[in-house]
């Protein structure tokens, strides 16, 4: 047995990830690539929303997507048809992505990019979960989440951190509002209580309603990032 001693560490477990995330953000900024970290519950309509978003942005931005879950229903060929490069990320069974996993994905995307078509907008489709992904900085330029009407207007009360870290909340499936006890105004108030700076876009990814203002926000954010 050696000598027993106590080493003071006093180090946040998230500190290393935060450092790597900041480094990744700086690298993305230098490349002119805006990385959006998109989070939501499973079944909120992420894939449909992505497709609608890509359709609205076709010809305006060069886009790419990183899928974080292994059994994703996003068909890479369908994404190709929309002019979007897609790669699959492996989380190794983890409930979230961290900055390192994101950086690996971005390197994969860069391999797909060509010098005359650099990536303006990369969207990271995070693991479907409202708890864990909010805890880990992925190095993204902005965080967005999708809250769908059937999930209820009380989600901002139940998952505070998710709403605090998101710059944008998309309220999806507004076409079914008449069938659910979901109050859009009350939902908006609850989101703003958590995060007064949140941009809120009510959308219906299926019909395309409300997608245009969201797409415009993306274009403006990408241009500001590249400026």
């Amino acid at each position, binding site marked *: 047995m050696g000598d*027993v*001693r*106590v080493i003071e560490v006093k180090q946040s*477990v998230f500190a290393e990830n935060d450092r790597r995330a900041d480094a990744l953000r700086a690298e993305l900024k230098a490349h002119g690539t805006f990385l959006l970290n998109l989070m939501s519950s499973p079944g909120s309509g992420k894939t449909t929303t992505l497709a609608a978003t890509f359709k609205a942005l076709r010809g305006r931005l060069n886009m790419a997507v990183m899928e974080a879950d292994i059994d994703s229903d996003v068909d890479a060929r369908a994404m190709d048809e929309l002019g979007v490069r897609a790669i699959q990320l492996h989380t190794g069974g983890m409930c979230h992505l961290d900055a390192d996993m994101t950086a690996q994905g971005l390197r994969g995307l860069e391999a797909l990019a060509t010098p005359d078509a650099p990536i303006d907008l990369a969207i990271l489709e995070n693991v479907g979960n409202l708890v864990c992904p909010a*805890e880990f900085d992925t190095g993204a330029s902005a965080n967005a989440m999708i809250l769908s009407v059937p999930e209820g207007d009380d989600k901002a009360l139940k998952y505070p951190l998710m709403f605090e870290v998101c710059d944008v909340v998309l309220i999806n499936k507004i076409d079914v509002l008449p069938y659910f006890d979901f109050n859009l105004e009350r939902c908006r108030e609850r989101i703003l209580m958590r995060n007064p700076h949140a941009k809120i876009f009510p959308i219906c990814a299926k019909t395309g309603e409300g997608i245009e203002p969201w797409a415009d926000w993306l274009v403006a954010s990408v241009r500001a990032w590249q400026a």
Partner: protein
Amino acid sequence: MHELGVVFYVIRDVKAVAEENDVTRVDCVTLEIGEVSGVVHELLRDAWKWAVKKESLMADAELEIETIPAVTFCEDCKRDYPTVEYGKTCPHCGSNHTFLVQGNEFIIKDMQVE
């Protein structure tokens, strides 16, 4: 929900500190965890037991957990209050202009080593 993930981060950091300090064996690691960090202690302990077994440096390392109470500060009346009991709304003045001062931490406090 990400207990296993954070256990991997803790092990990575502990190994780095151990290397810097010529440690041959880690006996115990003490964490300071905020009351509203969302980490479930039982799950964390289970994940810990499973994950440290794979590490020769710390195969039998114990896990100690100390809780940091959650405190929220009210920007309107400039007072603070316990977060778990009152949430986002200040019990002194009813304001929602409040923010968490402490309680979301996940810190490696110290480690007992040989």
